[in-house]
């Protein structure tokens, strides 16, 4: 597929992802409210917030880093999305996934977090670095089970390329990696909880403790970019998990259903469990998920 149409299709893809991301954000908040017996904000609330930020008349920044942070954040989200083929086989939805394999995707995730961390720290308020320290610690923690799962899958399919991983899972849900290597899937999905910063792992941006932090540090267009990053980042991760464990999608509706279910898994857990302290979170991730991951890897090594 020639370059220009690919770029246009990718742009459409990104906007679609953004919309879908914001929508999911709204739905989740609605569901959480309902579980807690509240009515909760309307589902389209995120769109309103984005619109509000873009139309503000004043904007402030703290220097160079205030620009770099949102750019890294949004760039990370969008970049990650662009690197993962949403629907394998449909060139329009494969974005730029040919320029980097699963490893690239994994490391691109840090791109966003790094930007976020730098930006927040530059503001100079002590509470933001506390948030970042917790966020990064937690990130490294869930990275281990995720890495183990990835290693297991890649060893199983013999390649880092997401295309091949998806191809290997074709032919009915029995071939999905979820079934092929359930242990690795367990490890990955537990890690997924950590990635989404939902309860019980949402100590990072815990609203009542850190009144400052990114949501208040940034405003207007800066904040809007952060929301874009956050939304696209969530969507990209869902797509990635879909490709890795649920055999990718042959059509868009299928993609929507699968990703929604994946996302709901973290929401569903989040609604029920209270918040972990940071070291509890870290110990949790280095506990059962890692054991599952290692077992998954051993499983693969044995029957190879």
């Amino acid at each position, binding site marked *: 597929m020639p370059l220009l149409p690919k770029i246009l299709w990718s742009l459409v893809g990104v906007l679609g992802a953004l919309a879908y991301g914001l929508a999911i954000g709204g739905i989740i908040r609605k569901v959480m409210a309902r579980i807690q017996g509240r009515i909760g904000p309307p589902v389209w609330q995120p769109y309103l917030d984005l619109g509000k930020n*873009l139309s*503000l008349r004043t*904007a*402030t*920044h*703290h220097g*160079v*880093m*205030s620009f770099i942070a*949102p*750019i890294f954040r*949004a760039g990370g989200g969008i*970049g990650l999305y662009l690197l993962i083929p949403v629907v394998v086989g449909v060139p329009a939805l494969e974005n730029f996934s040919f320029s*980097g394999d699963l*490893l*690239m995707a*994994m*490391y*691109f995730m*840090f*791109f966003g*977090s*790094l930007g976020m*961390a*730098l930006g927040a*720290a*530059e503001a*100079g*308020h*002590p509470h933001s*670095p*506390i948030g*970042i320290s917790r966020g*990064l*610690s937690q990130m*490294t*923690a869930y*990275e*281990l089970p995720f*890495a*183990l799962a990835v*290693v297991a899958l*890649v*060893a199983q399919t013999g*390649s*880092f390329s997401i295309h091949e991983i998806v191809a290997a899972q074709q032919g009915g849900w029995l071939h999905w990696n979820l079934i092929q290597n359930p242990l690795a899937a367990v490890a990955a999905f537990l890690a997924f909880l950590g990635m989404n910063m939902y309860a019980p792992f949402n100590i990072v941006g815990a609203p009542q403790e850190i*009144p400052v932090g990114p949501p*208040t*540090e940034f405003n*207007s*267009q*800066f904040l809007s*970019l952060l929301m874009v990053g956050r939304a696209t980042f969530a969507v990209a991760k869902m797509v990635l998990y879909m490709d890795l464990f649920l055999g990718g999608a042959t059509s868009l509706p299928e993609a929507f259903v699968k990703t929604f279910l994946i996302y709901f898994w973290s929401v569903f857990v989040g609604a029920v469990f209270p918040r972990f302290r940071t*070291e509890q979170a*870290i*110990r949790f991730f*280095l506990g059962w998920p890692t054991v599952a*991951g*290692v077992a998954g890897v051993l499983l693969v*090594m044995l029957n190879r």
Partner: protein
Amino acid sequence: MVNPILLIAVSLGVAFLLPVVDRLGRGVSRTVHLLTLAFGMLVSFRWLAALAAGAQPARIITGGWPPPLGINLFFGPLEAALAALAFTTALVAALYLAHHEQVPTVKSLVIQLVLVVGAVGLIMTRDLFNTFVFLEITGIGTYAILSFGRERESLESGFKYMALGSVASIFILLGVAFLYKLTGTLNLDDMAGRLPAVAVAGVGTVLLLLLVGLMAELKLFPLNGPAIDIYDGGEPGVMALLVGTTVNAVLFTFFKVLSLYRGDAWALAVSTVGMVTFVVANLLAIRQTRVRRMLGYSSSAQLGLLVFLLPFVRGEVVLMSAMALLLLNHTLAKAGLLWLAGLHGGERLEDWRGAFPDSVALRVSLGALILAMVGMPPFPGFWGKWQALVGLARSDAWPWIVPLLVGSLLELVYYFGWYRHILEPAGEGSRGAGRAAFAEVAGILLFAGTALALGVRMTAGIWGGPASPALLLGLVGLVLLLVRAIPVKAGAAVSLAATAWILVRMFLSGGGCPLWNVQGFFVVVTLGGALVISLAGLGLPVERRSFWGLFLILVGSILGLITSPSLLGFFVGWELMTWSSYLLVSQGRKGTRPGFLYMLFSGAAGFLILGGLMVAEGAGVDAIGGLVQLGGGAALAAWTLVAAGFAVKVASLGVHIWAPDAYAESPDLFTPFLSGVISKIPIFGLAVVAARIAAPSLHTVAGALEPVHVLAWVGGLTAFGMTLLAVFQEDAKRLLAYSSVGQVGYIVAALAIMSPLGWTAGLWHVVNHLLFKGLLFLAVAGVVYRTGTRRFADMGGLITRMPVSFVSVLIGIIALSGVPPLSGFAGKWLLYEALMERGWLLLTAALMFASVIAFLYCFRLIHSIFLGQLKPEHRELREAPPALLAAQVLLMAGIMVLSVWPQALLDPLQRLVGATFGAAGLELEGALTLTTSFGYFNAVAIMTLVAVLFVVLLAFLLFAGPRSKKIRQLDIVYAAEVPPPPEELHYAWAFFKPYERAFAPILRSAATAFWKGVGEVTGALGEAGRRIYTGDAQTYMLYAMLFILVLAGLGLAG
């Protein structure tokens, strides 16, 4: 030629005349004394030259009767050399002692002269009873001159020495008499001929008497008590005289008399006693706090080593030259050190803090002599020890090589324990040469100079002839070191010019790009690092003037190490690198203690590698290329030893405790080179030396376990452990130190994969690590230079004051953590592909986890220094010096090039790896996308993707919303809270406390505790051991009795 008998006759005649000549005036008698010694020296040197040129040795008879009727003397090359050495030492000692006499009398001149006559007589005589007479002459001369020093101590030690000496002479006299009775002759050679024929019972006992007598004369273990006491009590100048004359002569006599002892039992006994003396004396020296007593133990140990070698020397030419070198080295170094001890007068080790601040020549001589004593190249001692080890390895004498290495390591411990105090900056308490007369200093300079000159001449031939760049750099460094007039900045310029010139010459010279072979690759890495450091050196001042001299010697040694084809050349370069880097590390403000630890572990690594090389030499391999032929057990042993040595030098987990301090406390300018280049030399070792040895796999219960897999896990664990520890550091340089040790762990893992892709990943990471770690260290150096502190809590908010340093650190941490656009990701990607290809899954996951943890300390580094609140005192801080920034920009450019155009480095690497493995490992499809069997990566596409995103989003920020207004940090009214005063705001202390609590169980650093334990055990052994020297004369004599009975009991008294 002059008849050598005149050496004795003339000197004796003058000795008799001295009391009378003295009546004409002390000046006259002193000049006559010096002239006689000079005469003797000249004659011996002329003879030595003639004999070296092939003249016939002189066979002298006395009394007109040929042996066995009369007494005959022999003057061959060995005798000439020893006589020359004796006369020279005596001459220089006379000059020295002239200034140290409390009660000057002519008697001291007489005694010195007769002492030399006795020594020369001992060397030349071939008659057994005549040997006894000359032993008595040297003995009595020694007892007399020992009363030279301080009243009480010298008398006490002198008496003990004399008592044991008398016991020894009784044994010897009995032995000689009975031997005469048995063989009917007194001539040594004639007796050696007749002795085997004598089959009478009791011959063994007679020989034992003579042997124990001579061993008591030599003061070997357990009889070395008095010998050590005279060092403690006597005047060091006198001891220097004895070391040069009597000790060597008695040792040579022992060598001659050994010809009477046929059979392995005797050889085993002598070697065992020698080796036991060597190891025990070195062990006991560790706990010594008094310098002279330590030197005493060291002399006893060296003598033990020489005695140990004696039985092996029969006929083995290699070992003969080894002994000659070791003896010469010991005489030069020990005599020099003793004169220095006398001049300095420091009793305890601590008194030597910053010794000789007023005289550069003496300071350099002291350093040179200590290095010579420990057997570091280029000094003769190193060559001697190497040849001795090769000789032993050839005859597969492994039970001897191990204690020899252990003993040498112990020796290194206490000598550098002393050198640690000397290197400390000169305070008010440090003593110098004061108003020492030239005569006193002349000897020291002469001996140190000879040792150095001899050593350099021997090293010249090693690295491919004198024109090799390595040697040129080394010599330029030596000149810089010795000529202190050159200002420091000029030193930096010289170093910059030299490294640049060699680098350019390498690229221009034919034979394609040097990167195509491993040696070329590492040379470019080294020179690149050196270039950057020199450039930075123009900006950042250095405290010590000797920095650049040592730096060039270091770079020269590394080049030599890389380019040398032979194992010997490799090891010479290695040891040179060790001590020059040790000196540089110790130049840091608080650098001496970490330097000592650095030297201990580097020394231990050196000895491990030496052991491995000896396994190879034993199997007849002496070139690096030849290592391939090593087979079976030898290959495994060699590989394990060499790999263990490199693992210690790379500071893998468990032996890492030296690295963080050494990196942190070394001078700020040197740390980038230490972490960027020197930590890569063991990698070169692994790639070139270890890789060539095809180590067979170990058959453990769980099936075959490949050694390389173990090495990979060592690398992996180091990466994980060090990165984890780096996260909790409060000091910028220590954080980077742990980080660089961790990164090197990655490289070790990569190389251990032993696949084309693995090596590509490893070598890519070598360059990458040099670039970003150099960048980070230089940036931090700039910050430390400006702020004067290294603790995170004291910095903060410097982004406004030092923007360029901020950018360097930003680029550095992105490259380090492997975040995509920059070159770090390519390294990580290659590594994981290679690991997956090799099938080491768990190791891959562990490394992935470690690289994420690296992310933590990267952020902490940039946050604590540049982000957060700016401290009031840093308001007017200036940016780092321009030259330093230039160096940083150079490195940033390097990283950018590698990020955008990885093929620039990958193409040569493919050729290099292809040459090594025969397969490329990486297809460069369409010159853009790198594909391996597992995945693909298009650097250009990713870079453009990120760039486009960056531009688009930046444009969005600038133009989408209203013009944004910058607000100062304190004015955060918009953030709904007014912060307290700035100080409390900078959150940098214990940044990852929760993380620390989570990992608490595995964080208790067991390694430090373990090594402290090892230190204590050795110390306790030393403490217990030295208790046997009770200082009581009778106990020492009782030891002599028991010693002979024990040997008799062991069946030697046949």
